[in-house]
């Protein structure tokens, strides 16, 4: 676990808040799924919170994030309020996608959450495209793709990294290497599982970090985002992490992986490790963290109430917005 003393207290607390927000929200969604309140798939981010948190801490609302089936954490870290996420999974009109999307289609362009995708791969290309826009428009915005180890063996990885590199686009590729794609182990999908090493082969900046160490992610992302903003081109950060719940709610957890492996990663929980560390370092107090914990509990409780009380979308609107029409 990296040193925390160089990071301002506010930032440390903010990192903590985001991680706890994701965790509590995910736990709630898992309960709601079990209760039948969520009808579609629900892939939680539990265990991986440090990644989205460490990266999105450097992003502005006008930076564009593109994500995956496992996108709740990215959405929350990018600034989607929990109530809009919960309402979306509850299928309500107040959800961030108006109930049209559910877990795998989260859209909040207002805060730069440009969508999660139920198909593996496209987010890599779309972030590259956002980078293309930003370079063409000569802004200092950044496109960011989050994706799993499963996407590494997909053609989109190859084509996206290559285009971002040759055109020096302001893009950050964040690979969440949690060692499995559904129940298929990454080591069975690739002979060489060193994602950062392979990415470097394209000619971009690439490094691997401990994805359960929010400070490590934060620092790597800091450099990468700054480089992108300054015209220094794309980077890839491989975050080695683990999901401690099943691939999706309702699925089995073991079988393809040992209980021992799961337990060993639970022991490296990113939130526990970080809170122990910042308190030990004397950067913050246990009371500071407790205040946040309490606020988040209240926030999630409110989010569920909000979602529960929200109206269903009107079936009469079901075919709206397929087309945008001609621009003026």
């Amino acid at each position, binding site marked *: 676990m990296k040193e925390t003393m160089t990071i301002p207290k506010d930032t440390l607390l903010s990192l903590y808040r985001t991680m706890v927000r994701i965790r509590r929200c995910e736990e709630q969604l898992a309960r709601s799924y079990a209760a039948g309140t*969520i009808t579609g798939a629900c892939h939680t981010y539990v265990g991986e919170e440090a990644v989205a948190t460490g990266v999105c801490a450097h992003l502005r609302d006008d930076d564009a994030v593109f994500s995956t089936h496992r996108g709740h954490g990215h959405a929350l870290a990018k600034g989607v309020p929990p109530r809009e996420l919960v309402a979306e999974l509850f299928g309500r009109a107040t959800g961030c996608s108006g109930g*049209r999307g559910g877990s795998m289609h989260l859209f909040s362009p207002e805060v730069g959450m440009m969508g999660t995708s*139920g198909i593996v791969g496209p987010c890599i290309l779309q972030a590259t495209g956002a980078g293309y826009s930003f370079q063409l428009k000569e802004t200092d915005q950044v496109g960011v793709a989050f994706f799993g180890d499963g996407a590494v063996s997909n*053609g989109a990885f190859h084509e996206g990294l290559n285009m971002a590199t040759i055109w020096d686009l302001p893009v950050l590729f964040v690979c969440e290497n949690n060692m499995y794609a559904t129940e*298929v182990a990454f080591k069975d*999908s690739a002979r060489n599982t060193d994602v950062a090493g392979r990415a470097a082969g394209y000619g971009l900046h690439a490094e691997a970090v401990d994805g359960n160490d929010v400070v490590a992610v934060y620092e790597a992302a800091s450099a990468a985002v700054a480089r992108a903003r300054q015209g220094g081109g794309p980077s890839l950060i491989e975050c080695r992490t683990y999901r401690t719940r099943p691939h999706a709610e309702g699925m089995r957890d073991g079988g*393809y992986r040992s209980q021992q492996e799961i337990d060993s990663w639970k022991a490296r929980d990113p939130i526990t490790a970080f809170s122990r560390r910042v308190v030990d370092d004397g950067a913050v107090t246990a009371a500071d963290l407790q205040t946040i914990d309490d606020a988040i509990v209240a926030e999630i409780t409110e989010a569920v109430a909000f979602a529960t009380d929200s109206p269903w979308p009107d079936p009469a609107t079901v075919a709206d917005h397929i087309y945008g029409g001609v621009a003026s």
Partner: protein
Amino acid sequence: MSEREISYTEAAREALTAAMERDPTIFVLGEGIGERGGNFNTTLGLYERFGPRRLRDTPICERGFVGLCTGAAMTGTRPVVDFMFIDFILDSVGELTNQIAKIQYMSGGRLKMPVLLRGCVGIGGGAATHHSGSYYPLFLNVPGFRVVVPTTPYDAKGLMSTALRSDDPVLFLEHKSLLNVRGPVPEEEYQIPFGQAQVCRQGTTVTVVAIGPLVPKSLAACDTLAAEGISVEVIDPRTLAPLDLDTILTSVRKTGRLLVADESFGPCGVGAEIAAQVMAQGFDDLAAPVRRLNGVHTPTPYSPPLEAAVVPSMDQVAAAVRDLAAE
């Protein structure tokens, strides 16, 4: 027919198992189809029996493994791609359209293309827009494919067995809502030929050609309609390519009225093709225009009330039949 009842998925799996026993060149590719036995249990228990080379878990590279299957089929093996959700087929449309569909033709029949492509289609359960597609019109438009849409366990087994003996590429499309439906299925192997529709119920007022889940919905509407004096003939084409037009025309000769009920999209869809063919060959038999009932032409929304609004219901079938009978 045997009285034993098993599920649609079990029935298809029985056919696959028997074929794999018989033919060592059959192998299955997909994500989680090995030890895990498939997201929908399509290959449950087969890994233990046939091992990793014949039940091969793949990386997430649909285009890649469809391309791999093309080369495999050209060199004497019979690949089965288990897409889980058929939506994942879309990254491989180039391989399908320009390679798989064309190689028998381009080689003048010297190469065969026995690739079976299977997956779950359709809307339901909040699967949302990336896990709810059907896409069969594409594979009807492009020459070279066989397209199979079984609706009963009996048909799932018999058509799967035929598909696994076919030298042509076959799309085997299993609707979500049918996977757990149970029905009588013989234990032994049997084949149902492609291009033979099933008349599921006889009637005289209106013909309904129903695709996939619209078959049970249409059948469910029949009794009420019968009570109203509308006698419905329900036809399940079972395969869309080849299409058994004769059975449809024979029915229309009797009823003079045809509804094509299909969850998938209307424009350039199956209903359009059937309507155009029936008009072309049975114009004088038609007492009213061929009508189509389709899912709403929109990406599939997640929220339950929105999802319900895009799928044709039994009530909508009944209403469409009533309107047609009154025309």
